[in-house]
């Protein structure tokens, strides 16, 4: 593939291993060649490396296959998914899931990514709706500096939310940035 297809979350194959782009920077002096500076994470070992491509170069896309599965439950070490057609269950280690664990709700339909038949990660929907399980009541007043407060959602994830959000309310979160998007009214 052409390097112009590189972006965050792109899947790249290097030396026979699948990598996902976790950080990406396009750098270009006005009259010079563009450089695509990537931080790549090995989808199997979790090792991180830096790699810079020059504009015009090509890279190998990792052949990562996606299968629809439902997230069932998790413990500290394993996340269990179910193939909704065969009812087969699959355990994926927490290392592989990584930070995506913050957005996995029970019974969430998601895509599990496979490289050579080995689970290497999940592909989440771009937004999830979660319930705020804990947050301080918003205190009006110092709005010049304090426009947000911390809230915990049902997965234990902590996110900055506007002051008007109350415990028990549902909020939409962008899974790509981890940021609050909006309140959701049932």
């Amino acid at each position: 593939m052409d390097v112009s297809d590189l972006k965050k979350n792109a899947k790249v194959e290097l030396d026979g291993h699948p990598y996902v782009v976790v950080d990406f920077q396009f750098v270009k002096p006005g009259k010079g060649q563009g450089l695509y500076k990537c931080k790549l994470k090995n989808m199997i070992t979790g090792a991180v490396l830096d790699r810079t491509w020059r504009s015009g170069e090509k890279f190998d896309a990792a052949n990562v296959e996606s299968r629809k599965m439902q997230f069932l439950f998790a413990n500290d070490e394993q996340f269990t998914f179910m193939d909704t057609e065969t009812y087969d269950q699959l355990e994926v280690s927490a290392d592989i899931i990584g930070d995506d664990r913050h957005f996995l709700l029970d019974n969430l339909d998601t895509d599990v990514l496979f490289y050579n038949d080995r689970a290497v990660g999940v592909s989440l929907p771009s937004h999830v709706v979660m319930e705020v399980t804990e947050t301080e009541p918003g205190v009006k007043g110092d709005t010049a500096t304090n426009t947000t407060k911390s809230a915990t959602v049902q997965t234990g994830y902590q996110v900055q939310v506007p002051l008007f959000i109350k415990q028990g309310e549902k909020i939409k979160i962008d899974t790509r940035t981890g940021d609050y998007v909006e309140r959701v009214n049932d």
Partner: protein
Amino acid sequence: MTLSLSDRVGLWDAALAAMRVSFRGRGLREVQTPTRVEAPAIEPFIEPIAAPPGFLATSPELWMKRLRCHGGGDMFQIAPVFRQGEIGDLHREEFRLLEWYRDGDGIQAITDDVERIVGAVFEAARPWVQRPVQAPERWRRVRFLDWLRDVLGLTLLGNESAADLVEAVGAVQPSLCEGLVDWGTAQPPADVARLHAWTAFFSNVCDQHLDRWLAERAGQGEGVHLEAFPAPLCALARLDGQGLALRVESHVGGRELANGYVELRDDRVQRRRFETVNGLRMLVGSPRLPIDAEFLADLASPGLPPTVGCALGVDRLIMLAVGAETLDAVALAPAGVGGAL
């Protein structure tokens, strides 16, 4: 940092007004030239977007120079320009260039203009500043080859062939040689090879050293005018008596903001330069671009008066003026085509 949409509208309004006032005060008149053009300015690493039967302009340069050939005088424009594939925190495919051309034969007039415009826009943007901004308190002029020698210990003449450049640079810092001689099985003509090597070298220098040095200067309140570039780095500039290009790059807040030139007026040299650049484009697998025959004809007759010109990134200047770090933070619309606000 988050500016509301209304804030951003106010900011752009104030910044654009400040630019206009600044140029009108110096006698430059505002023009509007075609955005869809038959032939774009030909650059090694700038890709025009097709708009049949022509292209979207990557810069208003050729049209503005043509206007000057026909008596248009000193002029400026705030132009929409389009560059394929330039997407990142500091890049958008569609952005605005403040571009101006005036009578002159020295770089000083250009750098004076840049300093004045930067000052005016930083001043105008003050009501929207959300965090400390790095407004330049003073400006430093640096000659590129001198900088290479003083900061990197690399002594170059500025006209080295591709092979000589690789040898000289490799002896001092091999990492700067990445991608310099990447021709596959092609055997390019010497001038094309040299253009390619110097351009790749410059990109490496920026990425590995210059960007950081510029950021340090910005931290000390200094804007930087980088001038006297090696000829192989400048397709469209005149050369001085030492064979160095009369080109200046101005940097604010550690970011490249403007490119100025004493403009080339000789149509035959200009045609040769376009052809060399096309040669480089084909070497690296980019499409050959049509040469603007009308532009060359106007350069030949009636001819371009002695001209200095500059292009400045409007989006970037506005970003820097409020202390933001991405173009998105000050943009009025998402990058790309369409999208939600």
